[in-house]
């Protein structure tokens, strides 16, 4: 019993790229609606009622994006009204809403993705692709707090030596520049020492190991297989299920066949998968606690 974020990072990455990939590369409106709903649902399940401001921001962005297309593009046969001698058409408006749903949906998905994929998990994924790049990333992450601490030390020393006064603006700026300069020199030198120390301890002679171990459990395989199966069904639906939808010149859509309906169902399930996992886990927890 693991919540969604505790699965193996590779599985989580594959899942996110599948969901957002379908949303970005097909412009089929039901998929957009499903992806938007799934993205919002996952974000709400994970964060509850917090972040009201970002929901408001997304709503605003949705409206702007939906309105941008009819103002820019005047294709379509159903004219709603004329503005500045340019026709505003229903088709262009619907197209704008569709695009906006896609973009906002993907933005919600990646909000959750950024929360779930911490930098440590990304290093694990990147380490499988390229150990050297992953090393550069992990060292850069480590250097940021290190530089912060060191810059405080330098500042304290400079203040103690009487080289630094913060009540004088010019002096303050000059002092900060000097601290920055000292910090960069120190950072580079310190980096060289780190590198020599790494070389002396045999860096590059074997495979790099991870601080935290991410094992590939049976449930990871299950989630990965489920993701691939549902993705395959969705792609099959797009390819052969008559899931066509065109906005211009007039809205026209084909009736989906059996494969197409299966594809829509598969993508809906795929988009709601993390919410289902989270709900299941929280119900189990409640049940277990109620028995104590």
């Amino acid at each position, binding site marked *: 019993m693991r919540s969604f974020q505790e699965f193996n990072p590779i599985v989580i990455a594959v899942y996110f790229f599948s969901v957002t990939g379908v949303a970005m590369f097909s412009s089929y409106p039901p998929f957009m609606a499903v992806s938007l709903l799934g993205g919002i649902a996952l974000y709400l399940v994970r964060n509850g009622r917090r972040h009201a401001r970002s929901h408001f921001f997304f709503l605003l962005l949705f409206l702007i994006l939906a309105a941008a297309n009819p103002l820019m593009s005047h294709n379509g046969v159903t004219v709603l009204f004329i503005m500045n001698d340019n026709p505003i058409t229903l088709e262009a408006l619907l197209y704008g809403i569709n695009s906006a749903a896609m973009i906002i949906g993907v933005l919600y998905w*990646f909000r959750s993705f950024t929360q779930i994929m911490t930098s440590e998990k990304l290093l694990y994924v990147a380490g499988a692709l390229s150990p*050297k790049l992953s090393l550069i990333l992990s060292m*850069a992450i480590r*250097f940021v707090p290190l530089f912060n601490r060191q810059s405080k030390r330098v500042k304290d020393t400079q203040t103690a030596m009487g080289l630094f006064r913060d009540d004088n603006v010019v002096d303050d700026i000059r002092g900060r520049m000097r601290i920055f300069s000292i910090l*960069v020199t120190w950072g580079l030198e310190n980096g060289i020492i780190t590198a*020599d120390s*790494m070389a002396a301890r045999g860096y590059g002679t074997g495979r790099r190991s991870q601080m935290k171990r991410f094992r590939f459990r049976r449930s990871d395989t299950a989630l990965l297989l489920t993701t691939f199966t549902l993705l395959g069904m969705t792609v099959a639906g797009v390819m052969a299920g008559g899931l066509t939808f065109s906005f211009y010149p007039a809205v026209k859509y084909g009736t989906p066949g059996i494969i197409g309906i299966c594809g829509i169902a598969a993508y809906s399930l795929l988009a709601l998968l993390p919410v289902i996992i989270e709900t299941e886990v929280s119900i189990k927890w409640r049940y277990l606690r109620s028995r104590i």
Partner: protein
Amino acid sequence: MIVIKSRKLRSGIKAAVPFIVIPALAVLGSAAFARKRHIIISLAIAAFALLLFAAGFEKKSTGTRRMVIVSVMTALCFAGRFIPFLKPMTALTIITALYLGGEAGFLVGAMSALLSNFYFGQGPWTAFQMLAWGMIGLFAGILSEPLRRNRILLLIYGAAAGVAYSFIMDIWTVLWYAEGFQWNLYFAALGTAIPYTVSYAVSNVLFLALLARPFGEKLERIKIKYGV
């Protein structure tokens, strides 16, 4: 690299990607998808370009010292992106490229884009940002001789890089929003991005003017002292 272990395969990728895969993708994509799915093609090409670089980098026995210096510069870039309005990221990328070569510049640009997006939000645009910043670094490395000698030229390059970054990212915005590329949307996107474009260009020029010389001295000193 764990995925690409054999040397033959790696050099194969290195030869195949720029000369076969990318043109093939562009031609096939434009023929098969009939201007509907340009975003797939552009994302695929961005991913392949990054892969090409990773393959080349992994192969070289890059010294540990050089790698650590690249990560020091990445950390500085990353910290610099938190300054509001004025971003020293591009300037630091260019300076690194001038003194440590185009490859280091590419790495600093691409890696700091990837890293800072953990705080500014990851997304499908990360690949494009990595590529855009990486290319700015790479070209600065290629042009390092004249840029190091001529300060005015360096500042012009900085301003141009800021504008180019905005132009590249707006191609992405348009491709994402609409199917296929539309000029009027592109110009609209460029228009709304003018404040950002100006702030990129101004901060590049400002930070290059302020930092190019002191940073150059420091990197030069490290190079001479430790033979990086």
